[in-house]
């Protein structure tokens, strides 16, 4: 036992710089990735930003609220009407181009699993490919390498895109997450993706029941110990809803509690619907850690 424990100790690697677009982010900088859906039927507030003008308004709003990254997606995660490649491109590419025009320095992430779509959005100005479905399309990595883009390496338990978990079982879900995401990250590096631009994401709810999502949250420090920057996507998800028996519109407190715990355990990027609230939670965690000072402290100091 002591030998394997020592082996784990040896494997722990420090977090390094995360490089996105032209910027380097240090390990103690916690980043907010704002979700901007170009869909009529995503699970949370469906259709909110289906209209392009509304989507751009949302970008303006989240940037003003302190988002570091916008994550633009054209296909909902849940099953539903087919969205083929050309439809996904038409939903996302012109919009990515418009956001790039409006914000030359903003980090733009594209939420897609398809290499054909990734190619077009990268050409239009996206900096990061958020592959939520765990490397389903093996050629996605080539596109990231070709465009010098970043890549999110996720764990979806081997599920095909847009499918729901059905009686999924893991001997050790964290071990499976580590194996899957590290394999993807290794493949990406081998294919020429810059290591500083790679993140790993345990992908809460994807190929997981609520117990699994709670377990990966509880043991998130094991993911951080790999040295890869950890992205978590927690926002208003079903594991929060089931844990609290809370409908969609009552999941913010549970989301923020999970956000705080995840930040404490080493997550660095947070994909969210509510930017302002998340920013406050992350600033609070950073101040408790001592990474940033309070905004203004005078109590008892006069």
């Amino acid at each position, binding site marked *: 036992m002591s030998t394997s424990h020592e082996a784990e100790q040896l494997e722990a690697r420090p977090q390094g710089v995360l490089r996105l677009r032209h910027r380097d982010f240090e390990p103690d900088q916690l980043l907010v990735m704002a979700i901007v859906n170009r869909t009529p039927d995503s699970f949370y507030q469906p259709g909110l930003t289906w209209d392009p003008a509304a989507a751009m308004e949302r970008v303006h709003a989240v940037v003003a609220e302190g988002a570091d990254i916008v994550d633009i997606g054209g296909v909902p995660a849940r099953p539903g009407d087919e969205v083929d490649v050309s439809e996904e491109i038409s939903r996302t590419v012109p919009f990515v181009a418009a956001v790039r025009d409006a914000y030359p320095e903003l980090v733009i992430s594209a939420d897609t699993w398809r290499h054909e779509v990734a190619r077009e959005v990268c050409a239009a100005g996206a900096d990061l490919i958020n592959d939520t479905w765990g490397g389903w399309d093996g050629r996605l990595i080539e596109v990231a390498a070709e465009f010098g883009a970043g890549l999110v390496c996720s764990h979806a338990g081997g599920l095909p895109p847009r499918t729901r978990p059905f009686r999924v079982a893991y001997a050790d879900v964290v071990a499976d997450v580590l194996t899957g995401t590290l394999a993807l990250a290794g493949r990406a590096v081998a294919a020429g993706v810059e290591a500083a631009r790679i993140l790993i994401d345990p992908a809460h709810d994807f190929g997981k029941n609520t117990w699994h999502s709670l377990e990966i949250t509880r043991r998130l420090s094991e993911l951080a110990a790999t040295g890869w920057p950890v992205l978590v996507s927690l926002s208003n998800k079903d594991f929060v809803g089931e844990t609290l028996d809370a409908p969609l519109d009552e999941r913010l407190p549970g989301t923020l509690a999970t956000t705080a715990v995840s930040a404490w355990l080493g997550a660095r990027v947070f994909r969210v619907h509510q930017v302002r609230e998340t920013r406050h939670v992350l600033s609070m965690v950073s101040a408790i850690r*001592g990474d*940033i*000072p*309070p*905004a*203004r*402290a*005078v109590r*008892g*100091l*006069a």
Partner: protein
Amino acid sequence: MITGAALCPSPPLLSPQVTGRRPVLPELRAACAEAVRRLVAEESEVVEVIGPAAATGAWDAASRLDLSAFAPPNASRGAGSPPLALGLGAMLLDQAGYAGPRRLVAIGQDEPAGACARRGAEVADGNARTALLVMGDGSARRGLKAPGYLDPRAEGFDAEVERAVRAWDSGALLRLDPVLARDLMAAGRPAWQVLAGAMPAPAPACEVLYRDDPFGVAYLVAYLRPR
């Protein structure tokens, strides 16, 4: 002999290290900087910082402000750290770029007026041309939101201190009641009484650079130059 005296308050928030990312009381900080700038511009041989503390005594001139007790992320400088008022005085001297000789002298908060005045006279009678940096705060009981809540006597007490400094009424400073000062949480009393004992006649030229109580504590910044 005394070449000049700067009066500054000694709240922890004078240090930007404890107040966070936004600027706090920039006018107060600027006034203190100006008073100390004038002080170190005099042709003095030594600057003596005088600050109220638990007990009277000299501190190592090389010691510096230790904020660890006020803002724990700041590392402790160890057991030899000076009292807050002296640490802040040292900080102001450093900020002013003063690198010459300095003394850090604490005056006990219970020291009677006579002892304070004698300490001041010793400085004034010494051979060295000495600039005084006197750290002292008025009442911390100047309103319902003040650290010590409202004491209706606070306003009169602080007004009398300010009048005495402006008009240079050293007798009035020496008559400040230690018991009342303590009740009013006015920590500056013994330091001002040292100054009263040190400043020679005739009355010095006085300029008040700041007077306010933004957080319910009276802050007075002034520069005094002997005529």
